């Protein structure tokens, strides 16, 4: 199911509305439990839902797919999630491929009959609240309890993925992944403590639009920056006119504004694809003479980041390694 930063129309609409639309409770979701009935009340984007205390057959869609695969949740069906494939480890990728696909990349491609055939006792939908309009919730609810836990701010993946794992009764494995991530992040933060915190950084995201002559500038808390922040990086500045969702932490100025955006930057980072290739929107920036004129670029302090779409701790571990590999030259200067 297409939800985050999708270039598709549904995804674009979702992104534009995501912050206002996502009403996920911040209380962790699990509100009350009933040992006798084996159910509990869970607060999600779609309200307070009574779900099994220990679900045995879970269907996951959207962002819940990688989160619940990593958490070893008892999945019986998932939506297609091609964008996450490059960030899955071998074991998770095998699980992902083996699981029955009950929905496509777009929310509108939900196969209700396939979901019913999977006989789930819980359905976890990981799409932003506005995209829920593309889903026949009434029909889904007739199959099993439905909890919608979709993305809001980019950096909120930490809380959201935990909430998804919690709903599916798979917090144990989730917490183990989180611990591994926290340990690795702390190690790298110590490694870069004499370098990174002193730098004013700027980041070029992959979602600018060369056809419109714009680039994406990402600030603290955005997809391309939030994991580097765990290492002590700071992306200075703030969005001129904040919008909902990712627009609260990134903006899309004209290429002519490159000097104003990054002239003060000590170093610059930019998003690349998982295979290291440069997306067209970023290449448009890198090929610009205005980019080549920037002090940080002239000083050679330019670093690509892979895996900037990470939205689970397992994926974020890959991002940490990629950032470490990219920033390593900073330690030699």
């Amino acid at each position, binding site marked *: 199911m*297409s939800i985050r930063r999708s*270039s*598709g*129309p*549904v995804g674009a609409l979702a992104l534009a509305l995501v912050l206002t639309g996502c009403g996920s409770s911040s209380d962790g979701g699990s509100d009350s439990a009933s040992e006798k009935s084996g159910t509990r009340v869970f607060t999600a984007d779609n309200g307070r839902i009574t779900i099994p205390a220990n679900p045995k057959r879970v269907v996951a869609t959207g962002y819940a797919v990688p989160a619940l695969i990593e958490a070893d949740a008892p999945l019986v069906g998932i939506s297609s999630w091609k964008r996450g494939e490059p960030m899955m480890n071998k074991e998770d990728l095998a699980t992902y491929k083996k699981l029955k696909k009950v929905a496509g990349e*777009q929310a509108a491609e939900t196969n209700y009959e396939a979901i019913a055939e999977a006989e789930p006792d819980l359905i976890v939908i990981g799409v932003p609240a506005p995209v829920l309009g593309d889903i026949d919730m009434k029909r889904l609810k007739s199959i099993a309890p439905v909890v919608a836990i979709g993305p809001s701010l980019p950096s909120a993946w930490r809380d959201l993925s935990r909430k998804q794992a919690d709903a599916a009764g798979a917090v144990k494995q989730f917490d183990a992944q989180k611990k591994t991530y926290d340990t690795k992040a702390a190690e790298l933060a110590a490694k870069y403590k004499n370098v990174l915190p002193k730098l004013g950084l700027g980041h070029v995201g992959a979602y600018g*639009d*060369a*056809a*419109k*002559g*714009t680039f994406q500038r990402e600030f603290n808390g955005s997809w391309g920056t939030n994991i580097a922040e765990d290492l002590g990086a700071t992306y200075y500045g703030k969005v001129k*006119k904040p919008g909902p969702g990712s627009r609260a932490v990134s903006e*899309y*100025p*004209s*290429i*002519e*504004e490159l*000097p*104003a955006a990054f*002239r003060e930057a000590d170093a610059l980072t930019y998003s690349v694809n998982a295979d290291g290739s440069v997306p*067209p929107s970023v290449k*448009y920036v890198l*090929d*610009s*003479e*205005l980019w080549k*004129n920037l002090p940080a670029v002239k000083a050679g302090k330019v670093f690509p980041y892979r895996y900037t779409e990470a939205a689970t701790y397992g994926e974020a571990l890959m991002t940490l390694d990629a950032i470490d590999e990219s920033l390593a030259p900073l330690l030699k200067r």
Partner: protein
Amino acid sequence: MTVAGRASEAAGNRRAVPQTALLVGGLVLLAALAVLSMGVGARHVAPGEVVRALFDYRGTDDHVVVRDVRAPRALLAVAVGAALAVAGALIQTLARNPLAEPGILGVTAGAGFAVTLGSAAGLAGGRAGELGFAVAGSVAAALLVVAVGRGSPLRLVLTGVAVTAVLNGVALGLRLMLPDTFDLYRFWSVGTLAGREQASLSWPLTAIAVSLAGALLLSRALNALTLGENVAHTLGADVGRVRLTTLVLITVLSGAATAVAGPILFVGLIVPHLVRKPAAGSVPWLIAYTMVLGPVLLLAADMAARVLLPTGEVPVAIVTAFLGGPMLIWAVRRYGAGSL
């Protein structure tokens, strides 16, 4: 020189001086707008700095913006504006239809269809791919329309409408089935001059320049056609050759313009109407005026596109559509559709 040519020359001499003055005035306005347009945008650059960037380049950020971003964009606006306006004048003259515009030959629909097809096949992702498919689609659609409808202007127009409808319908079906294709197309389908400065435009711009020269050379022969085919024959014009050459020029001009900037409507329709009065029935003057007013209109629209919204640019095709309708109504009310 043919009889038609001599008749045209005699009529033209009576108004040559004021018409020439008007043309020179238009060129001065065009030059001023071009300089002004290089100062307007997300980053303000004073006109004096624009001139220094062009003639005394120092490599400052202002100079880079002017030389590397805005000058290519202004050049593109001039080329696309001239191409669409002249293509409009040619098709209106040839079809003797005041509502004719370059898209009537199926050029825009052909380009859109080919971009859709290329995207569906996964081949039109980048700018070069889009450009290639748009050119191929424009030419193929125009060839089909000309081949089927070459018998008469009415037949040509009807064939163009039919082919456009079919291509648009099939392309729409593909886009509805393929979300990624729809996504790519929705960006392409709203014509803009932004973000083109790094693309290789030498071939399309050369094709436009050569075709504009060809239109000027052909304009005298077209004068005879405005009197009707029989009269044109009598005056010694080779009607078939003139018509075919005109169709080729329209195809190249509108195809190249659409390929590099996407569909920009109204310029080809409205500009010939705006200059029909001063052209006074002379096709050479009509072509010359449209060649200047088209770029003026597109440059002005492109500047407006950059400053209209505080949040960012509006695609220039939206501005031309927004301005084009009222301007056309004004022109028709003031001058009438004029003699075609």
